[in-house]
């Protein structure tokens, strides 16, 4: 399992990484990118199973990253979990319309993150079984 954590704040990347380990993703390779542009470079060069991304980042925001992922044939099925302080209705709708798989509002707890991740992995397992 390979997860890409995208956030411009290194503290936040570290927190998400810690949470993933705490949630039992111990045999998981967790990689980091500090904005959408660098995330796209990494996503194009190696396979990932999940992207956890912030919204508000320089150069390429999380919503643009999500749209870029959905627009690229090789990446469009990749699950994307948004973890962001942006919590207004329009933004959540925009993320949903762009095809986000989960939306966690900061500040969040390990319980919330676990819930959303579990949902995403359940869906992946279900679609994998039906395929």
């Amino acid at each position: 399992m390979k997860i890409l954590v995208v956030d411009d704040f290194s503290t936040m990347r570290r927190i998400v990484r810690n949470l993933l380990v705490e949630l039992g993703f111990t045999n998981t390779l967790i990689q980091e990118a500090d904005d959408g542009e660098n995330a796209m470079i990494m996503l194009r060069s190696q396979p990932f199973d999940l992207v956890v991304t912030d919204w508000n980042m320089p150069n390429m925001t999380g919503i643009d990253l999500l749209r870029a992922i959905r627009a690229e044939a090789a990446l469009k099925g990749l699950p994307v979990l948004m973890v962001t302080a942006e919590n207004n209705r329009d933004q959540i709708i925009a993320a949903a319309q762009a095809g986000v798989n989960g939306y966690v509002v900061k500040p969040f707890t390990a319980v919330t993150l676990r819930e959303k991740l579990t949902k995403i992995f359940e869906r992946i397992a279900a679609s994998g079984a039906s395929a």
Partner: protein
Amino acid sequence: MNAVLPLAVDDSLPPELRDLLNSPEGPAFEHALDTMVRQREQHLFRALGQLARELHDAVRRLGGELAQEGVPGIVADARQHLQDVLEMSANAANRSIDFAERLRPQAESLARNAWDVLQQAEGDEPAAALAREAATFADSCRAGLGDMVVAQSWQDLTGQRIKKVASFIGTVESSLLELVRLTGALAGVEAPVDVAKVTSQEDADRLLSEFGF
């Protein structure tokens, strides 16, 4: 200005005026016209000049007040202070996460060992009581340390606001520079650097110092 073109042949003037200027009384008429226009212009310029000086003084006062003791002297200082806050808070958050990362495996190992002891000890032995206590403590430590890591997300949330304030200060700075240039030009101080060409901090400092900031 039309100074290069004699008024009498200026096509942009109404034909009635051109006729008057071309008449024998033309020079006298033009002189009277000049005097009238100059008087009106001077009135306007005086009012504008006064306004510009007042504005310039106000902007200068603002610069002075910003430079008070304990307050960042220049805008770049203010931005640097915010950058320092960002770095200090990131360091503080990282230190807390360091502690948690170091202590969590210890808590996990304590919990494991306590459970091993509990497996072997009889229920009412002092060792069993201690092991039970240790196991409970280790579990709550592990949970607490996890929460402590998550709580460090304050650094990201406050940091985003600090970044927004820093960018707002940048906007205020360029507006202030534009104001300095405009008021300086209006107050009769020639603007030495086109504000559009102000790209470096040195340019900004030079422009401000030339206007007495």
